[in-house]
């Protein structure tokens, strides 16, 4: 047996990769090809037969599905807000935590904790906070400003969604930024201090360029993740009030499972999401990678 394997490296390559390739092919590759295929059909979860509709689904999504177009722009708004917020806060947390001596690991442990919870479960905790706790706090204490329609008005619901997302995700980025900060050589900072640079200028001119690779990664992670946001909206607002907080993933889910089970059409929408993520993340990574080299 091994004589043949050693004589033919490609055979042993296939033998070692076969189990991974098998699972990958059945549950990821074929469904992807199937998804592309079905996005050009009127496949419906209720019936066996389907017909080709060409680009019909794609045209419909952009021209006559105002709810989808709304969810597209709403997701975009969310992505811009959350990518900035998460990264600024994640980096700020990292800097604050790193500045402590003895309490460093305690604060890191605490800030990272929300990340361990299932997104769905922690969103339910927040639903409890918004629906029950904050109204009572506003009523019974001096914190009257907490009396807001947290989930009831579309503008406050957006704030709530951002709040929960930051709560869940900032600690993850913090951990990556802490690792990057620890890689900044100490002597560079000391040299700058001797030259009279303020902490703020040291941060802008020395630390930021040094942690550029981490920024590239974190921007990629937040961009890629935030376009796919689902659980927070599903558990917190259910897309409401009305459909004002409906994001793309939720729109797709509703199309496929709640409304008319139009699997083909829902898949076409998901392919649009895929293309958007692909274009934006590839652009982001290639632009920032160039920056890294220059720095």
């Amino acid at each position: 047996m091994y004589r043949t394997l050693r004589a033919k490296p490609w055979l042993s390559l296939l033998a070692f990769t076969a189990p991974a390739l098998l699972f990958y092919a059945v549950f990821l590759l074929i469904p992807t090809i199937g998804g592309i295929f079905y996005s050009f059909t009127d496949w419906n979860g209720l019936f066996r037969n389907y017909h080709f509709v060409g680009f019909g689904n794609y045209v419909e999504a952009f021209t006559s599905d105002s709810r989808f177009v709304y969810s597209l722009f709403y997701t975009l708004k969310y992505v811009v807000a959350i990518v900035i917020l998460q990264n600024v806060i994640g980096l700020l947390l990292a800097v604050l935590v790193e500045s402590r001596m003895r309490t460093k690991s305690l604060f890191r442990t605490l800030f990272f904790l929300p990340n361990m919870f299932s997104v769905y479960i922690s969103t339910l905790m927040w639903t409890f906070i918004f629906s029950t706790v904050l109204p009572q706090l506003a009523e019974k204490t001096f914190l009257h400003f907490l009396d807001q329609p947290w989930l009831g008005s579309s503008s406050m619901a957006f704030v709530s969604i951002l709040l929960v997302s930051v709560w869940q995700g900032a600690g993850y980025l913090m951990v990556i930024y802490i690792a990057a900060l620890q890689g900044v050589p100490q002597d560079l900072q000391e040299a700058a201090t001797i030259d009279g640079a303020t902490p703020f200028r040291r941060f802008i001119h020395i630390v930021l360029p040094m942690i550029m690779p981490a920024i590239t990664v974190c921007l990629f992670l937040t961009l890629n993740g935030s376009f796919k946001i689902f659980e927070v909206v599903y558990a917190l607002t259910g897309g409401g009030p009305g459909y004002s907080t409906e994001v793309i993933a939720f729109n797709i889910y509703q199309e496929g499972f709640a409304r008319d089970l139009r699997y083909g059409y829902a898949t076409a929408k998901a392919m649009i999401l895929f293309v958007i993520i692909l274009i934006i993340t590839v652009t982001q990574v290639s632009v920032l990678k160039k920056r890294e080299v220059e720095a």
Partner: protein
Amino acid sequence: MRKSRLFFSLVILLLLIAITVFFLFPILLAIMNSFKTQGEMFKSVIEWPKTLHWDNYKYVLTEAHLPRSLYNTFVITFLSIVGIVVCSALAGYKLSRTPGKLSSAIFFLFLASMLIPFYSIMFSLIQISTKLHIDGSIYRLPLVYIGLGVNFAVFLYHGFVKSVPRELEESAQMDGCGQLQTFVRIIFPLLIPITMTIVILDILWVWNDFMLPLIMITNYKSYTLVLLASTFFSQYSNEWSYILSILILASLPVILIYLIFQRYIVKGIADGAVKG
């Protein structure tokens, strides 16, 4: 100079404490109120519970069949992780060690799939899983997780193997060790650090996953913890005392894992990000 530095340090400490309050607030309130009766909660959710009222937990543990969901979640997570590690370690090692077009093509295939959103494959995945009789069975659902999880794990193994010296395996093969035997005895033990990273990242993913169980598991007997919480939320939408105790119990295992393996988790995430 010294005084201003002390003042600065104090401001940062206060800021950190304020942030801590924000991060712990929902968790603390969820725990507090899971020990209250519905009536007590109605009076005040912000006070400490007067007595520790365990009935919510008792109810959830008996009536809601929480232990069964705990078992289901455990089985699904365990089988998925074993499968992902075995398949990916074999593939990542061999792909990294074999030069050539076929090898790069296979690696590219894994790599290219990492950006695909789950929603794009969701509907055809359901169709294929129905044909294969996955049926949301806790023993067959891990197959889907393996399929979705191998790409990233292969990628991490592939990168890590580059730093493993070749001499050991070459001398083992000289001594007449077969390829598989060399892998099991010599290579895999050297891959433990990256395996830890993969195991941790995948436990967090599978244990906490909501979407796949939501669309795949229809039988109440196969419910995972997160799915159980979801059903409870829709059934008892205002009886928060029950819902909260489920949320706490469902999160307890991962929190325990976090407190024990914190160092590895934090390192795993930083490493996974840098390599990803």
